[in-house]
């Protein structure tokens, strides 16, 4: 497992050294927080903790988007030629893909934690147990969507196609999850899509923890868009956690398998510059 650790360490170093990317991951969520807290003020007047409700959604979205985009590290490795150094090393494909998924998760959890720290200054109140649970859910989100991201990157194998695919996946999933816009104020005809979106359940379990809703009655949870009553079938945050875990395992398996059999030998490598 030494090689997996080495890949994680290397990807972390690369992430930290890219100052622009680092700044972007802090500024983007803050920008969203600013915009949506204004936009949603009137719409969210019925919520118990409107600001924290929004903050929780934005934190978990940062982890989601971060894990998808961080798994593109492999695409820049292909473009820069470094991928060949990894491919001819005496390490297995599985070690490489697991290393990339792990580093995408670690980085996105760090991004989420950074935002959590800032949120503590704004007014989010947490105790250590809740924070630990939040980290757990963030890590689960990181592995799940890091796997999906790497799966898509392996299938597309170049940045241009990945951009298109990830735009198609990321945008609708984000907006139909209730993270930015509460699902309770969404039009009825969109609700089937909301129910089909795995991010919906990820968002609800994360809100459930960070807003300390463990003593809130189920009816109130449904009212706040943290639990869902689909024609009498109740999806509690706990069930949502199970759904996310299941999707995560499926994609982890699919991703590792896809990466094991992918042929990277004919990938065009940029010519050496002198």
């Amino acid at each position, binding site marked *: 497992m030494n090689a997996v650790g080495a890949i994680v360490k290397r990807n972390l170093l690369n992430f930290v050294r890219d100052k622009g990317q680092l700044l972007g991951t802090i500024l983007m969520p803050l920008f969203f927080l600013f915009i949506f807290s204004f936009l949603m003020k009137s719409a969210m007047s019925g919520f118990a903790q409107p600001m924290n409700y929004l903050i929780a959604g934005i934190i978990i979205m940062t982890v989601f988007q971060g894990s998808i985009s961080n798994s593109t590290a492999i695409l820049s490795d292909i473009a820069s030629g470094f991928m060949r150094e990894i491919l001819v090393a005496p390490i297995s494909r599985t070690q490489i893909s697991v290393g990339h998924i792990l580093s995408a998760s670690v980085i996105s959890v760090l991004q989420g934690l950074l935002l959590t720290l800032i949120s503590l200054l704004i007014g989010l109140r947490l105790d250590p147990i809740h924070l630990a649970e939040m980290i757990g859910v963030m890590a689960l989100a990181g592995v799940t969507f890091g796997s999906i991201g790497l799966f898509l990157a392996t299938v597309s194998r170049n940045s241009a196609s990945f951009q298109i695919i990830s735009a198609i996946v990321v945008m609708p999933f984000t907006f139909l999850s209730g993270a930015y816009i509460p699902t309770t104020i969404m039009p009825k005809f969109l609700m089937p899509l909301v129910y089909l979106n795995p991010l919906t359940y990820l968002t609800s379990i994360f809100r459930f923890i960070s807003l300390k809703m463990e003593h809130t009655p189920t009816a109130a949870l449904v009212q706040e868009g943290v639990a869902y009553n689909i024609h009498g079938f109740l999806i509690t945050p706990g069930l949502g956690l199970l759904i996310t875990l299941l999707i995560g395992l499926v994609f982890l398996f699919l991703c590792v398998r896809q990466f094991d059999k992918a042929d990277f030998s004919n990938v065009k*490598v940029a010519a050496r510059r002198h």
Partner: protein
Amino acid sequence: MQDIIEVEHFSKRYGDFKAVDDISFIVKEGEIFAFLGPNGAGKSTTINTLCTILDKTSGEMRINGHDVSAQKDKVRKDIGIVFQESTLDEKLTVEENLRLHCSFYQVPKSEAEERIRFALALVELTDWRKATVGGLSGGMKRRVEIARGLVHFPKVLFLDEPTTGLDPQTRAGVWAYIRKLQKEKNITVFLTTHYMDEAEICSHVAIIDRGKLIAFDTPENLEKQYTSTTLTIRSREPERMENYLREGALSYQADGGRFLVNIGKTSQALELLSLFRNSIIDFEVKKGSLNDVFLSVTGKEIRAS
């Protein structure tokens, strides 16, 4: 000496296209082996298959006794590779690149430091250890890659055009490292190059064209077999010279007072020169080069792409 690389009836097909068609050769431990060919001849296909990146269609390929398709990880530990394209992580420092390589190749932590020091000293980059790779010049990056290819102490070092695009000074430097390495560590060097003068100093040369191996021998033997030595003389007595050449049944071309004489060995020139000692204005003995061999067997001039 032991056979370190064995290639027997290796073929690689892409659909109906035969990229490499039934080639065989061996490389002995500790030698510098040059693999030459025009662009698109099948050089990269062969190297990539030896390096376990591609799978062969048929034939046998072994490095240090291990099959390159069936025992990939064993082969990978035994080889170091410097590709034509850069494969360094540009955001990391020189040292970080080497350390990463050490963890990929399971170099014991206690030995990594010593090996990195050795490899960097060999390519004279000790002072650049903490420099970010992205900021280095092309020649320095190539040296970093050579150092990196060595830290796991491979048995064979593959160099795919290691000096292409480098200035003459850096080229000479890279060659000095390669020879030092071969002498000190008895590493086998397998290289492709566009520079015939570089191939000249190799122990064996293989030339591939259109997927077939068309020549495989020492540079001297190839030159003997495919080229001739010419003596160019300008004489004050062209008639006497011409008579002598005709009587001696030597093949020659006359051009005014200048004669181009094909001779078998350079020593044959001595005889002619001493005979006409007093009437020679100028002379030149030119041996056939590997470039001439290449031209003669492929019908093409080797060119840098």
